[in-house]
């Protein structure tokens, strides 16, 4: 198990600190759990791996297709 964790760590460190890119910043928004440090490292590694391998969906826009609602109109309709 320790061996696996060490390999995972080495792989993640190589993704973050090796190659042609220089790390400037990493931050995270964790889920509701439960999870361990290893789970978290694995999730970060997985995300970067999917991005590098092209299996992730990548866009320069969030592409929000939600229809905008005016809160004032909603509140007015609730009053009536």
């Amino acid at each position, binding site marked *: 198990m320790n061996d696996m964790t060490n390999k995972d760590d080495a792989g993640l*460190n190589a993704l*973050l*600190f090796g190659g*042609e*890119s*220089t*790390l*400037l*910043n*990493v*931050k*995270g*928004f*964790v*889920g*509701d*759990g*439960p*999870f*361990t*440090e290893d*789970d*978290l*490292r*694995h*999730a*970060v590694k*997985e*995300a*970067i791996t*999917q*991005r590098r391998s092209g*299996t*992730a*969906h*990548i*866009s*320069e*826009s*969030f*592409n*929000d297709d*939600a229809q*905008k*609602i*005016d*809160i*004032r109109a*909603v*509140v007015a309709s*609730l*009053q009536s």
Partner: protein
Amino acid sequence: MTIHDIIKHFSSYTAAPVDPDDVAKQIKLAGIRDQIFFVEVDIEVRVLRGALHTYVLTKGVYSDPDICSDIFYAANQSRAWKRLVCCKELLHILDQSVSQTSTIDDFDKLIRGLCVPPNLGSINDGVQIWTDRLMFYYASAIVFPMRARELLLAAKIPAGQTLQEVAARVLDIPEPVAMLVLSDNWPSLYKAIIGSK
């Protein structure tokens, strides 16, 4: 333009939901030249909802390096959560150098800190982890603008529904964020973190 200016910009918004693309636009107006990419990934949402990864990419000896900011978000969560996650991680692009996680030691500290529930955190967790926690409140202030809060608090809520449910539905935001922003303590917290109402 600072992070506080960006939050103030959105504070008067009455159109919902707030689009992360609009937040990215404001960040660019703040002078950030990063290439920003939204990256939807298949990761366990129970573990990680999203992340920011900012790096310098050197393509060749004679080309200028690019600064890229990848905004990761888990595919398996609602659009409301995706928006919140993306807004929070976008705001981290404005992290001061002291708050950035850029070394192996910083990263190890961040991972350890993220595993600690915020209410159990200590001052020794370091500035990177506290910035991470604080940014959740900043992002909440953006997706649930102060003006929208004022309007909804004055609204007549139909019987059988709660104000929190109506707010979460109308703004298309996660219910915990609706509960946080509608709490009595929010105006004073907002004032403390933003500087003014």
